[in-house]
């Protein structure tokens, strides 16, 4: 069945509701091309234009609240431009977030901001880290707890299970170029966060969701710990497994390294990195 007219109608409506210049042009002319008998409903179109923009803006403020505060009045303009670019962005990405809401709007924003807002990226060089942090926070907050390692638990004997551990499935590791914990604190405490400046500081940060309280936590870790955690995420692991990996990156003798790894594993269990 040919629904090309319906498609055309929907495309025109979408353009009216998202492209202010087109809405203004059609409003001035008072008619739509291809619809000679139609009296243009300027008020109705304006209502939808306002509602769509408000919905997008409020949704993005909910996902990126601190970014919105830093960018202040400019955030609305950025979101409007982002909305216009979404068509191309959606088609360019093959995989999105599993979080339904984040996937449908917020997922493409980190990459978009980096490519399209280079002037602002230069003015606020820490913003890319902040946007990445906020996207990860939204992702982690709603992440499902499934992990491949959990699937294999059944085949592990009771005794062996006591000695093995697995990585919290709701966990992400990022290299940041700014002290993200300090960034968040300063932005939250400031009335004019757009005036803040931060020194560059390379660090590896682990973000995880506490399995009991569901709160998102930040931990600074070193690159070897990051490596061990990434290895451990591949399945149920033992201390001996981690010691073997660490030996390739460390000059300590095996026995001494094993003791250090035991202490590290306990610390990471206390922090809910290992569960």
């Amino acid at each position, binding site marked *: *069945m040919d629904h090309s007219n*319906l498609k055309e*109608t929907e495309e*025109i409506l979408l353009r009216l509701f998202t492209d202010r210049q087109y809405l203004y042009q059609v409003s001035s002319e008072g008619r739509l091309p291809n619809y000679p008998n139609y*009296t243009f409903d300027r008020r109705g179109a304006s209502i939808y234009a306002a509602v769509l923009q408000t919905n997008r803006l409020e949704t993005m403020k909910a996902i990126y609240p601190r970014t919105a505060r830093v960018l202040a009045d400019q955030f609305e303009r950025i979101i409007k431009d982002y909305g216009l670019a979404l068509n191309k962005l959606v088609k360019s990405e093959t995989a999105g977030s599993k*979080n339904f809401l984040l996937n449908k709007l917020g997922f493409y924003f980190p990459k978009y901001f980096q490519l399209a807002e280079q002037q602002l990226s230069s003015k606020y060089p820490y913003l890319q880290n902040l946007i990445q942090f906020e996207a990860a926070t939204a992702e982690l907050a709603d992440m499902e707890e499934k992990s491949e390692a959990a699937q294999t638990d059944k085949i592990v004997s009771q005794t062996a299970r006591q000695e093995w551990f697995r990585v919290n499935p*709701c966990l992400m590791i990022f290299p940041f170029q700014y002290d993200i914990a300090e960034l968040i604190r300063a932005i939250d405490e400031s009335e004019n966060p757009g005036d803040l400046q931060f020194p560059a500081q390379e660090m590896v940060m682990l973000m995880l969701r506490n399995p009991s309280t569901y709160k998102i936590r930040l931990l600074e870790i070193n690159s070897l710990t990051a490596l061990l955690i990434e290895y451990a995420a591949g399945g149920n692991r033992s201390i001996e497994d981690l010691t073997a990996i660490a030996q390739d990156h460390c000059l300590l003798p095996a026995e001494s390294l094993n003791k250090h790894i035991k202490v590290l594993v306990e610390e990471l269990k206390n922090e809910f990195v290992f569960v």
Partner: protein
Amino acid sequence: MQNDFLSAKKQLPFLGVGLGLRTELAESIFAETTAIDFLEIIPEQYMGKGGESRERLEKACSLYQAVSHGVNLSLGSTDELDWSYLRTLKQFVNDIRAPWFSDHVCFASLGQVYLHELLPVPFNRTTIEHMTRRIKQVKDYIDLPFIIENTTYYMNVPGSAMSEAQFLSELIEQADCGLLLDINNVYVNCINHGLDPYNFLDQLPLERTVQIHMAGHKQSGDIVLDTHGSSIADPVYDLLKYALGKPGVKVHAISIERDQNQPAFTELKEELAAIKSIYKNATSAALSVKKEGA
């Protein structure tokens, strides 16, 4: 006229008077199980999610019967149906053991971009045929009774060639699905477009009404907006009484939608009680009429 749906409708349970589950209301909802008969859940807020959202959903379903009311099926869109969404939705409605599921007469996405708003479709036969095909695909896949909601529209859409009432009637009959009658939307549309809401209701196939929505609106200049952010207005209660009193109307659930500007929970409880009273009077009157006619 197809009547598979009407046969299936006879088997649907009566759920009573309920409330839309919203995060800000969750604590009160979990504490006040006597005032609320069932919950309406927006699947997009819980699908594919763990953590606190999952915990809230599990608690809600342990305390209440639930129905699913989606916002992203985008039945009117000329995009292909989103089968990834449908697979997740099917799992969701099965998990919450919903007796039926619903979505809206609108388009909410185009070019794979979700618009986060229910946008109007042109009221014409092309749209009816297009949406009928999609509704049948959705019904067959999810394999659960499906009902569609009449939405507000603030703009006369180009290409429309019939009234909203005629469009809805033909669509629901051709697609052989049920109706989620949003009484507030009926009121808002009729006020905004200069129509008589009682006459509007007379034109709908109300015997296909499974669920009714009640909500608040807001006057903004000379237009009324469906905000779901204020208490239910008296004219909307009057329309509810009218709809429930129509011959052949057997409703299985009535729910309040309150999305923003949340009041004290006592106010929502008063609205629930008011709706229960209207329903009780309407069904008593219907029984009396039946007895007199018997």
